């Protein structure tokens, strides 16, 4: 578990460093793969069964394979695919990520002092907050999608540790929702590219008041 925590923290920090969309997507795939590993380890240690391995396999199918594939396909269609931000902006989001890691530990110590697995709970809070930071601070549509999936992964991990996974039918529903959300966001991104010739959401500032 310690290895998992350290590598998850590392990969999420790395996630905030990327400006290039393709590498960021691959990083997301690795992050989801770690979540899937955690899911399988925890599921099988609690006596296997359908509920033991199905969520893990679904995580691999949906979050490790399908979502990165769909995002990469969209990225291929973009001509100028580097995110237009300065290095300072990337450093800001890493700094915010570092703060949110500390904040994650504080939140967990304050709210659930006697909970087991303090490190991994703090990591999941860290992932949720970093996902939010990515959505707020990055302007590229695809980076915002990656932030959303990071946040979702964090919530999923939190649920996994705290409650050993929700009932199977609810988990299936959540997977379906994530799948549809990504399909719709990919459709919207390609429409953004057709209409605005960019996927930078800073151009979306016409509706006011």
């Amino acid at each position: 578990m310690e290895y998992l925590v350290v590598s998850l923290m590392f990969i999420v920090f790395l996630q905030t460093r990327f400006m290039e969309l393709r590498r960021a997507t691959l990083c997301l795939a690795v992050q989801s793969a770690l979540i899937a590993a955690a899911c399988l380890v925890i599921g099988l240690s609690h006596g296997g069964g359908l509920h033991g391995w199905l969520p893990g396999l679904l995580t691999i199918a949906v979050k490790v394979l399908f979502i990165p594939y769909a995002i990469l396909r969209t990225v291929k269609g973009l001509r100028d695919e580097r995110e237009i931000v300065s290095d300072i902006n990337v450093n800001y989001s890493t700094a915010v990520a570092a703060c949110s890691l500390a904040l994650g530990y504080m939140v967990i110590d304050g709210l659930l002092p006697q909970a087991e697995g303090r490190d991994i709970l703090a990591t999941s809070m860290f992932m949720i907050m970093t996902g939010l930071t990515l959505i707020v601070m990055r302007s590229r549509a695809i980076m915002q999608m990656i932030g959303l999936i990071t946040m979702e992964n964090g919530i999923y991990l939190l649920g996994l540790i705290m409650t050993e996974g929700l009932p199977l039918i609810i988990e299936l529903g959540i997977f379906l929702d994530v799948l549809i959300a990504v399909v719709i966001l990919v459709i919207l991104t390609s429409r953004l590219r057709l209409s605005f010739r960019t996927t930078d959401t800073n151009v979306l500032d016409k509706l006011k008041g």
Partner: protein
Amino acid sequence: MLEYILLLLCLPPVCALLALTGMFSNNILHWLHRLTATAVGVSVGLMASKFNPAEPYMDDYFYVDALSLWVVIIITTLYVAASWTARSYLTREERCGVLKGEQLQTGRYFALMQFFCWTMFIVLLVKNLGLMWVAIEATTLISALLISFKFTRAALEATWKYIMVCTVGICLALLGTLVLYYAQLAALGSENALSWVYLHAHAEALDPALTKLALLFLVIGYGTKAGMAPMHTWLPDAYAEAPSLTSGMLSGALCSCAIYVLLRNLVILLPTAGSEMMSSMLLFFAVLTVAVAVPFVVVQRDVKRILAYSSMENIGIMVAGIGAFSALSIKAVMLHMYSHAMIKFVLFYIAGTIIQEYQTRNMMRIHGMIKDVPHTATFWLTGMLGILGLPPMGLFFSKFYIMSALFNEGHWLAGSLLIVLLAGVLIGILYHGMRMLCDNAKRQPLGDLLGAIDVPVLALLLVFTCIVGAGFENLPWLNNLLNHAVRVIGG
């Protein structure tokens, strides 16, 4: 009972899939859409007549009590009204609306509309709070496609904001649901995971620290979906850029769904989290929501955005009613939900018609409606008076009861603030609305475009609100249903 529930959940997706196949001409599609909605309406009617509010229906997955039946009735009424008016609206939209010169994809529109209503029915009928979350997220995704239906630049912008803000909000609600499940595991074990009935029966056993945390996340999460300030930023854009029929459904039906889910969760959390925290939090958000909406109503120029901000104002009033949490205020919230849904649907429909008639959304360029387009103007005036809460329309009574409950429960600060703010909304909407109706026309409309079938449907919706709002105490069946709904929430 189960057969009606299954009918309710099977007909819309079947119709949607048939519409997606593209085998049918537009004419057949229109009738398919209408007949499906009417069949669903009839089965809801039969369900309501067989239903005894004192004995909720329950099985492994579904649960129907007075509260869910009431919201089902609201949504079904809008669904039937939207399907009967869809034909004339879409034909006009193709002839002189935003879709002019384009091939309208009627099949896609109907399929999305049916799926949208279907996901809302699932929200209302499932027993499990987790599945309720899944269904609410599904409504967000389906309605995103409805908002971006035209794929114009403005529609894309509105949809992107909608889906980002709402999905983040809904993720927080998932976090709240997880905390609730954790509290259940700690206190009651993993049997009947997240089942509303089970949790309701054992609500006192949950850990107060955890339920307070869950309350925080759930109010913020589902509040985002309902459009509470400061998480409302998606709302005016989405309501204004969606096709008008969709805006009416979003404002009337989806918002009622979000408030329904919030109520369901509150019932579980209140016994342990305590009503002081909930009251102060909800009243704060309610006053903030109305306060944010008022300036935008007063200086507004866009005919659909003014309605969107007026929706925010009504959401604020409903949330304040929940915050007051007495039997009177909860009953008034039920009535308010109904009247607001009906009147707002009519207003959005008429706003869409006005945009088609005058070829502009700018209210400053529309004058003299009462002379040039008398039918549309009549509905615009009646709807406006209705949404402002003037008697005899239903909103007058529900607003009055909510205000009186606020003062009765001792929330005089929130109550007086709300009254002042509501006066601001009244001035804003009346000023803009009356300017459009009177004055001398500088711009000639294309004609009175309201179709033959629109008039009775819209008039019926308005009359329903008068009857329900003013006469619910004289309708024994309705009064009984509402009383049981209040008892479910336990105000």
